[in-house]
């Protein structure tokens, strides 16, 4: 077993890597730095990391190639992507390519910490699941996967096609597990435009962090789940049915679906 470290940050801008070292280091996390994907790959030979933060645009090997490389080498470390080209297209592309999260640059210390905290919990939940599958029979499911007919953006949010032209959207159980204690939720209003890959609401957690909910589709909000707004616990109890967030009239569903994964494939 390779020695375990917390975070590997990959970026060709020193100011970024140093900022991550400074912010995460202050939280007691061990952070290593690589200034290129090649250097990161070399580091992964010797160390095991709980979380990787990777820039998209780098000189030799770019973030997406690195992501594919990580998947090919069966490294289970979750990857958070980040870029200065903070377009929603890049965010959606990163999530559908297997990154667990996307932080647009420039970010604040809190935004970074929120993402890192969720990323580390994600890793922990994955470990729990792995452990559960080893012990027979599984004592307890680490998290409830989304139902078969649903689609998801990354692991964070889901969408259900209602068959009437509108869709329901919500957050996954796994996402809620990475937040841990939900304290409150701030939602948009009816009539507001939402864009796939950009934030359509925030969930506050007990540790004082604000977690943005990345919208899985683009469109206009036609209904907000007042029940969830009033009592966020509904969402934790039943994330896929009672705990929906918005009913949305999608504007480019065909296009959006290309970046979504079908939940039915998760169960095979």
């Amino acid at each position, binding site marked *: 077993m390779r020695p375990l470290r917390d975070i590997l940050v990959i970026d060709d801008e020193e*100011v970024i890597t140093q900022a991550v070292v*400074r912010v995460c280091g202050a939280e007691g996390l061990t952070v290593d730095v690589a200034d290129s994907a090649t250097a990161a790959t070399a580091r992964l030979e010797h160390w095991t990391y709980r979380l990787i933060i990777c820039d998209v645009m780098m000189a030799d090997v770019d973030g997406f190639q690195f992501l594919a490389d990580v998947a090919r080498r069966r490294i289970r470390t979750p990857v958070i992507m980040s870029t200065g080209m*903070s377009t929603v297209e890049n965010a959606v592309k990163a999530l559908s390519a297997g990154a667990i999260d996307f932080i647009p*640059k*420039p*970010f604040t210390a*809190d935004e970074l910490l929120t993402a890192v905290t969720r990323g580390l919990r994600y890793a922990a939940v994955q470990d729990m699941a792995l452990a559960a599958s080893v012990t027979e029979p599984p004592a307890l499911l680490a998290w409830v996967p989304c139902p078969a007919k649903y689609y998801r953006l990354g692991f964070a949010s889901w969408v259900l096609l209602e068959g009437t032209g509108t869709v329901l959207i919500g957050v996954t159980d796994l996402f809620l597990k990475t937040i841990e204690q939900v304290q409150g939720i701030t939602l948009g209003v009816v009539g507001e435009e939402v864009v796939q890959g950009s934030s359509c609401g925030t969930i506050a957690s007990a540790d004082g962090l604000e977690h943005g909910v990345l919208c899985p589709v683009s469109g206009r909000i036609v209904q907000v789940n007042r029940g969830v707004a009033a009592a966020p616990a509904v969402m934790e109890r039943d994330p896929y049915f009672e705990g929906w967030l918005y009913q949305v009239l999608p504007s480019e569903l065909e296009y959006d679906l290309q970046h979504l994964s079908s939940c039915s494939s998760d169960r095979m």
Partner: protein
Amino acid sequence: MFQKLGFKLTVAVGVIALVTISVFAWFNSRSVDRSLLAEVERHANQLSETVKSSTEYDMLLNQRERIHETIKRMGNQSSIQRIRIMNKAGAVIYSSDTTEIGKLVDKKAESCYMCHSVGQPLQRLEMKDRTRVFRVLPDAPRTLGIINPIYNTRSCSQAACHAHPRSQVILGVLDVTLPLAVVDEDIRRGQVEVIIFAIVAILALSLIIGLLVTRWVAMPVRALVAATRHVAGGDLNYVIPETRDDELGMLARSFNNMTHKLSEARLQLFQSDKLASLGRLAAGVAHEINNPLTGVLTYSSFLLKRTKDQPEVQEDLKVIVRETIRCREIVKSLLDFARQSVPKKNPADINEIIGHAALVVENQLALNHVRLVKELGADVPALTVDANQMQQVFINLFVNATDAIGPDAGGGTITVTTSRLTLSPVGITQIKKAQCPKRHSLMNSEVRIDGKPSIRIKVQSNGNEGFIYRDPIYGKTRHQFGIAPEVTKVTKVTCPECATSLLVDGAVCPDCGSPVFAFEVPPKGMVEGCTSRDCTWQRWPDVDQSGARDFVEMRIRDTGGGIAPEELPRIFEPFYTTKGQKGTGLGLAVIWGIIDNHDGTIVVESALGEGTTFVIRIPVSA
């Protein structure tokens, strides 16, 4: 010159006319020649018969002296050259030329060989065989001769005097010759006339064809060629007058249509090209700025977290964090602008947004000794806007105003006012597109009224003709007149391009009774107006019926140097800058895009030396 179509056509027509007229003239002259000769022939024959019958009786009585006298007298007439009678042996017995009498005529002579050319002399001859045309000398005028055989009759053979033997068939020959000089002269004159006619006809025909070809073909073709040169030179607004309905007129129309389409395509291309470069620029800026900005934002927000116990540092750090986040939003909105995305609109207090913007530029204003006066209306309703974008609008305008005042002016004032405004669309709606029934644009960019292209129509009144440039703001009447039409005297209102009448049949102005004209403002129906100079009546049902709307008006007035009139129309164009290296030329373009995205309008009022006022109006959503 010789390669020109007109010249070739003219020459071709000339040659064809030459050939046709020459052939015609030749046949005509031949036929005239023949009929004249036939006439002379008949006349000669008659004469010959007259001579024969008037001498017959004398011959029977053998009155030789009388016959001599008759022939001599007749032969003396000017139209007759000679009359003579020869006996069968060829001796001249009588002749108007007395010297000839008694001489023998050779059978080979021109008056004899008709009958004597074949061995046995012919006894009966057709009239045409009895006549001959000959010249006495090669250069003498022509002469026509006719012989008339004198046949033996019973009275001749039974006469007492000198009975001819009965067996003799022909007793002699009467030979009459007439000069053809006069006839020849007539023929020659006729030929000359025909030649003169032919030359004149060919010249006239060529000239007319040449003129028509020039007018119908060469001129329009020249106009087309000139137009292609203009277009090749890049002037896609060049229009060929479409005054004709023939093929060249069609060509001109389709040419104009083509350049129109081309210019639209070029404009679109130009615009998308500009937007594409803007997008590339934005992407580059985003990437380059966002990295250092991450450093600033992460460290300052981190510091903010760690210094919660130091309130004096907290306030300053909050400003750094807040403004860095604004930088992030600006970069993002630059990307969004390039991608034409929708703003994130929420109900917001515009006065508050102005307050935030003022705080940001406070230091910069103080440095330049610029005072910011806020006259914010208390009753201004909330607007559904993207607060970040609107703040950016105000910051940009404040910075622009500060630059306009300049560091050397020793200070100045920026006044920002907000007010609620209920506007009827009358008096504020700008007509941006106007066309005649044949869909020619009436918009004229050369004559601008308040900086906006005017609507040009052609008017005829009292025999005068001229243009009227109509105010493009519906409800305003700052028209410019190139003619002074009097009430009810206007006879024609037409499209300057195709001369189609714009007058509304039978309609008169309800205010003054003058004729009413109308043009189309697609897709918003027809606008009607009064032709009288002194009348302000206008009607636009689409706008008149749309009712009043609530607006919030924001005015940002500075005491700077103002903007030159020629620069005014261009200031909202991307990459247009008057600040040289200091500006990117994007500020006002971005502002324009933001206001446009909010269904608002932004206009600028300025004159050199009198400062500049930007007026923004955003509709209050229902």
